[in-house]
């Protein structure tokens, strides 16, 4: 990573950390972990399951909300405040600006996930009194959640590069919801014929597949994750993010900023 990208990334990270919304969401995640302990007490034999399910779901959902709401403003806010002109008047290329913003936001989310994960493991220790080998699988779920964030961040940046913040949020959130149904969409495509099949198959491969990245439920039951899935999901997330970022770079390169 060149120095300019690193500088933009670190500034994005600092800006996000200074953002009060981010702090509030972290506090909410901690509260949810605490709620997990409470829910465990009013149910039967699922204390640990609740902590894992609720904890990881909170990490995932809060991270996605952060990714969308911070990501959509990364470009438009810079244009609105006119700070983008200051940045671009220096020897910084437009693509470096986009890539720097991406790494900054992703880094913010990784740090955010790290602290949320501490909360999840703390809650887990509270209900189980000890860790077992199967608990290590939670790291795999957290890794997949970070892969989700990488995709969402790149999509938010893509939308942010050409649309208003509000519309970008709608687009990004809609894609997250549709992406959760990716496997259903592929099933639907397989059942259709002719042009519809072509269209549905194209859409199914174009939208991000979040369903393969969501393994929270199976991790809660300590079901092992095949190493092939880890590898393929990693590559998929990287390629998908690269695709979305490339689109963002192309659009931003040709965008008239006057």
């Amino acid at each position, binding site marked *: 990573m060149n120095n300019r990208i690193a500088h933009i990334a670190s500034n994005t990270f600092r800006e996000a950390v200074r953002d009060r919304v981010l702090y509030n969401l972290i506090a909410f995640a901690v509260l949810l972990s605490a709620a997990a302990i409470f829910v465990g007490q009013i149910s039967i034999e699922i204390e640990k399951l609740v902590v894992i*399910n609720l904890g990881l779901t909170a990490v995932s959902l809060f991270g996605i909300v952060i990714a969308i709401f911070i990501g959509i403003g990364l470009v438009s806010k810079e244009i609105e405040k006119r700070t983008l002109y200051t940045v671009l008047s220096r020897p910084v290329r437009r693509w470096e600006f986009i890539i720097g913003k991406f790494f900054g936001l992703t880094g913010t989310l990784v740090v955010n996930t790290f602290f949320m994960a501490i909360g999840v493991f703390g809650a887990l220790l509270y209900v189980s009194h000890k860790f077992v080998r199967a608990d290590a699988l939670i790291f795999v779920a957290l890794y997949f959640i970070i892969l989700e964030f990488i995709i969402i961040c790149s999509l938010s940046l893509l939308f942010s590069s050409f649309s208003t913040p509000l519309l970008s949020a709608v687009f990004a959130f809609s894609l997250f919801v549709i992406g959760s149904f990716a496997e259903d969409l592929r099933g639907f495509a397989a059942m259709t014929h002719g042009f519809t099949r072509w269209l549905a198959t194209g859409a199914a491969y174009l939208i991000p597949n979040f369903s393969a990245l969501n393994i929270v439920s199976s991790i809660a039951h300590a079901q092992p994750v095949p190493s092939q899935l880890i590898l393929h999901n990693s590559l998929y997330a990287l390629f998908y993010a690269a695709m979305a970022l490339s689109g963002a770079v192309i659009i931003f390169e040709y965008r008239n900023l006057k």
Partner: protein
Amino acid sequence: MKQRRQVAIIAGACLIVSLAASALLLRHIDQLRPQATLEDVLYLNSPTVLKRLSLGYNGLLADIYWTRAVQYFGFRHHSGAESFNLLAPLLEITTNLDPHLTAAYHFGASFLAPHPPDGAGQPERAIQLMEFGIQHNPNDWKLYYDLGFIYYMNLKDYPKAADAFARGSKVPNAHPFLRLLAAQMAEHAGEYETARMMWSATYQNSQDKQIRQNAVEHLRGLRADEDITELQKLVARFGQRTGQLPTSMSELAAAEGLRGLPVDPLGHPYKLTPDSRIELTDPDYFPFATKGFAPGYKPPQQFHYDQP
């Protein structure tokens, strides 16, 4: 600055008073509409739709529905309700959302199968639940045990109970007890000893305090039933031999060579009534006994789980 602080203090006080007043009013409103806060409604009763709406976070939703099922059963059981209409749908949604949530099968079946007020009185739904659980967790031997248990205890269908135990005994790492139960079912179904084996197994295989306590209550009831049956036989034999019925327990004990006065599993002596029936001294502690109650006795709604 001083003025700002005054405003903040007044606003803060106003906030606290308003919050307290609204909470107080809500309590009054709840009292006026007692069923409003716990209305038995399932707005979404399709497990498939709920699974779709969960956006892949179905594990958490299953936990929420399972907790709701527990709370629903707990509240209704506590209030002595006779109907548990939402229990089966809640369990169906829970297990469809997360088919590996084995607690929902183990406990859900024990909520569904017994007759009211101990349960929902729906053993067929309990069996459907267990079969669904076995289909998705074929290597969990405890599910076969629970299935056999329902057939044995609630439906008195001993061949099917034997079949469930036999199926479970073939599962890898199954408890050897299952094979024994399958054999016992074939030869001695309906006997006290078989029932005792079942409840002992339940006690040994559960970590849940209430399930274990429930097993203890059942074992206590079985022992009391067996004792009373035996004592009643002794009373009849005494009558045949002497031509009159015993007037006291000590007379019966002396005549039949018993070692002291016979006592129930809690150590209380059994009573001999003037019409020569054997009764429990404190029947409230024997919710699952079927004998030894005074005519017209009504058991309390809450069991004495905290008793020895």
